[in-house]
C-alpha cells in the first residue's frame, strides 16, 4: 500500500474546499508544511493524527485565524487564501472550535443569535432557531440559561448549533467529542451523520481515529505537520494508522 488509493473518487466532483501546499509557521517553527486537502460536497472528511500533528493549526488557517506562510485555499471555486475570517463565515465556512468556546456569560439564545451574525434575514434566522431546537431538543429547554452553566455535552451541542446558524456549506469541527461521556460522544457523532444527511459537508478533526474512520468518507492522517497518508474511510488499515500514531515509519 505505497500509493494512496483513490477508490472513493469514482465520480469526478469538483471539491468544495481545496487546499494546496498549505504551510503555517509560529515564528520560526513551521507547524504545518505542504498540506494538500480536498473536501468534496456532501462528504465527511476527517483529519486524524496524534497531538501536535498540526490538525488544529490547519483548521485555524482554513478559517483565517492564522496567516499562511505558503499555499492556497480555494472554497467553492473562489480563492480565499487572504480573505478575512468574518468574510469566510459569510461565504459559508463555519468552524466549531476545539473545547467548544461557547460564550459562557451569554444565554443559549444569544449564542445562537451570534452564530447568525453574518446574516441579516430575521425571518429565516427565527426559523433556523427552531431547526436547531429540533436537532438538539436539550438546547430548546435551556434557551434562557447562561451557556457557561450547561454540561460539556450540551455546550458541544450549542457550539455545533451556533456554527450551523450561519447556514454554512462547510462545517469544520475540531475535536467535538473531547472530554465527553461515552453516550454523549455517540449522540454528537450521530448528529454529525444527521447533519450530513441533510446535505452538509463536514471536515472533522478527531483524535479518536477509530470513530473518525467509521464515520468518514475519506481520512487524512497527519504527522509532524504533513499529510502522511490518505484513503477512504472504509479502506484505511487500522494497523497502519496505529503505526503513524506511534511514530514508527511504515
Amino acid at each position: 500500500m505505497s500509493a494512496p488509493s483513490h477508490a472513493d473518487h469514482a465520480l469526478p466532483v469538483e471539491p468544495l474546499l481545496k487546499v494546496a501546499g498549505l504551510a503555517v509557521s509560529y515564528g520560526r517553527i513551521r507547524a504545518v508544511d505542504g498540506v494538500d486537502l480536498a473536501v468534496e460536497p456532501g462528504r465527511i472528511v476527517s483529519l486524524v493524527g496524534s497531538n501536535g500533528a498540526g490538525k488544529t493549526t490547519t483548521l485555524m488557517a482554513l478559517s483565517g485565524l492564522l496567516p499562511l506562510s505558503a499555499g492556497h485555499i480555494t472554497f467553492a471555486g473562489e480563492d480565499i487564501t487572504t480573505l478575512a475570517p468574518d468574510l469566510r463565515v459569510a461565504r459559508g465556512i463555519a468552524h466549531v472550535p476545539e473545547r467548544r468556546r461557547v460564550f459562557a456569560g451569554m444565554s443559549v439564545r444569544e449564542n445562537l443569535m451570534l452564530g447568525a451574525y453574518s446574516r441579516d434575514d430575521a425571518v429565516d434566522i427565527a426559523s433556523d432557531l427552531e431547526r436547531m431546537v429540533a436537532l438538539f431538543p436539550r438546547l430548546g429547554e435551556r434557551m434562557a440559561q447562561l451557556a457557561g452553566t450547561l454540561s460539556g455535552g450540551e455546550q458541544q451541542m450549542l457550539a455545533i448549533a451556533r456554527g450551523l446558524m450561519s447556514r454554512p456549506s462547510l462545517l469544520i469541527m475540531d475535536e467535538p467529542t473531547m472530554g465527553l461521556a461515552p453516550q454523549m460522544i455517540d449522540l454528537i457523532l450521530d448528529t454529525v451523520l444527521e447533519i450530513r444527511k441533510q446535505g452538509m459537508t463536514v471536515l472533522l478533526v478527531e483524535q479518536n481515529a477509530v470513530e473518525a474512520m467509521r464515520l468518514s468518507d475519506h481520512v487524512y492522517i497527519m504527522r509532524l505537520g504533513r499529510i502522511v497518508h490518505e484513503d477512504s474511510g472504509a479502506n484505511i488499515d487500522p494497523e497502519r494508522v496505529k503505526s503513524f500514531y506511534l511514530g514508527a515509519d511504515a
Partner: protein
Amino acid sequence: MDYLGQLLANGLVLGAIYALAAVAFTLVYGVVRLVNFAFGELFMLGAFLTASLMLPEVRLLGMIVPMPGFSLPVAALGAIVLTGALGVLVDRIAYRPLRNAPRLAPLITSIAVSVVLQSLAQTIWGAEELRFPEFHLATLPPVVLFDSIYLSVMDLVVMATALAAMLGLSAFIARSSLGRAMRASAEDQMAATLVGIPVNRVVAAAFAIGSGFAALAGLLYAQTYGFAHSNMGFLPGLKALTAAVLGGIGSIPGAALGGLILGLVEALGAGYLPNGTAWKDAISFVLLVGLLYLRPQGLLGKPELNSAGRGSLLGGASEFGAAWLRAGFAKVDGLLAKSAAAGPRAALVLLALAVLVGLLVPSDYWLRILTMVVIYGMLASGLNVIVGFAGLLDLGFVAFWAVGSYLTSILFVLVLKDQFGVAPADIWWLLYLNLPLAGLLAAGFAVILGTPTLRLRGDYLAIMTLGFGEIVRVVAINWMDLTNGPMGIRGIPAPNLFGIALGSPRAQFFFALALAVLVVFAIARLVRSYVGRAWVAIREDEEAAEAMGVPTARYKLYAYAASGFVGGFVGVFYAHSQQYISPLNFSLFENILLLMLVVLGGLGTFVGPFVGALIWIVFLQLALDLPFVQAYPETRFALLGVVLIVLMVFRPQGLAASARVALTMPGARPGALPGARAGRAKEAA
C-alpha cells in the same frame, strides 16, 4: 440641611459627568482589556471642539479662523462625532497593531497618545483657557428645590443627558446585534471571530462610542465650569478611571455607580472637611485605594477580570516593520549583544566615556543638561527595578523621589536654617547622611504602599499605585507647615564636601556620575542574586513562580523597597542639585516620563534607563533649535509621544532590549557583573 442639599445636588452634577467619562474607560476595557489613558484628552477635545463650533471665530495656531457659531446641541453633536472618529483613528494607528502584544505596550502607548493629544491641543488652541460660550438655557433663572437648593437649568440638562445616554447605551449593549457582538468579543475574541464577527470593527465601534462618551462628558464639564483648557482632561480623566475601577471596570452600571459615588463624596468632602476643597482630589484616591484593598474587583465587577493581567509585561520582538527597519534593529542588537558579552569591560568603557565627556564638554549649559541625564537615568533605574525586573507596573514611583527630596530640603532649609539658624555650609556632612536615610525612609514608605497592592495584578496595580502617587502629591501641596505647599522650598544648599563647594556644573556632573555608579552597582548586585531571580520569575509568570515555592509577596515587597530606596536616595541629590523643589516636580507626568524613558531604553536592562534619559533630554534640547518647535514648544512632547508610539508598535521591547539581563547562574560566568568592575573603576578614577 440646606447646605447638605446643595452639596448633594452639586455632587450629582459632578457625578453624572464622571459617570459618563467612566463609561468610556469601562466600555473599551471590557472589550479589549485596555486602560485607555487617552480618554482624558478626548474629554478635553470634546470641550474644545464644542466651544469652537459654538463661537463665531476662534484663534487656532495663532490665526483667527471663522467658525459656524452653532448652538450648543448642534456643536455638541459635531464634537461627539469628531471625537468618536478620532478615537477610531487612534485605535487603528496606535492600539490595533498591539492587540496581541504584552500588556505593558498598549498601556504605554495610550499614555503616549495622551501626551501627543494634549500637546497638540495646546499647540492648536494655545495655553490659555478658552471661555465656553454661554448657551441660552444657561441664562435662565435657576430652579429652586425645597426653597434652598439651587440648580441651574443646565445642571438639570447635564443630569438628564447623562441619564439618557447611559440608559441608551445599556439598552444598546443588551439588545442590539452590535452590542451582542461587543459582549461576545469581550468574552472570547477567537470564538467571536469564528462566528463571523469582524472583531476589529467591533472594537473600533467600542472606541467610537467610548470616545463619544468622553467628549460628551468633557463638553458638559466645560459647560458647567465655563472654560476649556488643554490640561483640563487630566484630573477628570483620572477621576473617571477611578470611578470605573470603583464600580468594577468592565461594568456599565458599575461605572454609573462609581461616578455618582465619586461625585457625591467629593462634593461632601469639599463641603464638610476642613479646607476640603484643597483636599478633594485626595479624597477620591483615598477612596480608590481603600476600595481596591477591600474589594479588588470593584463594587459590581467580576473577580476574574482581575487575573486578566497574567503573563509577562515585557514583550518579545514585533512582527511589524519594513525590512530596512528590522535590519537596522538587528545591527543594534548585534552591537548590544557583543557589548553585553563583554560585560564588565563594556560598563567600564561606558563609564570612561562618561568621564571623558564630563572633562571635555566646555559649556556649563551642556554639563547641566548631562547632569539631568544622569539624574533621570538613576531615577529611571529605580523605577526599572520594580517595572523591568519584578514586572509590577508602578505609577506612584515619584512619591519615593519626593520623599527623598523633601526630607533633605525640610531638614536643611525649614528646620536647621529657618528655625535654628544653622548655616548649611557648617553641616555639609548631613547631605551624605541624608542619602541613605532618605533611601531608608522612602523604602519604608514603599513597603507601606506596597503591602496593600500585593493582591492586585496588572492594570489594577497600576491604578492603585497611581492613586498613591497622587495622594502624596496632594499632601505635598496642602500640608503647608511641612512642605511649604505650592510655593516649594527655596535655597537648598548645593553639595559640599569638607568645605569644598561642589556647586559648579562640572562638579555636580561628577557627583551625579559617582552616585550613578553606586546605584547601578547596587541594582546589578541585587538582580544577580537570588532576589533578582525571584523577581524575574514573578515578572514572567507569577502563578508559576508561586507554584515553584517563590514567596511572591515577600519578593514583591523587596522590589518595592529597593525601588523606593533608589528613589529616595536620588531624590536627595536632586534637591541639592536643583536647589529648589515644589510639588510640581513630582507630578504623575514625571512618573510617566520616567516610565517612558525605561521603556524607550529597554525594560529590565542596566543601561536602558540611561539610554532613554540621554535620548529624551538631549532631544528636548536639540529640538529647541528647530524653528517649528521654537514657535510651538509643546510639540516636543507630541514628538516624544509619536516616537514612543512608533517604538511600541515596531519594537515593543525597547531599544536596548537585547542587553536585557540574562539571569544565568552566578557560577556560569565568573565575574560577569558589569557593575562590580565599574565600581572599582570609579575608585581608581
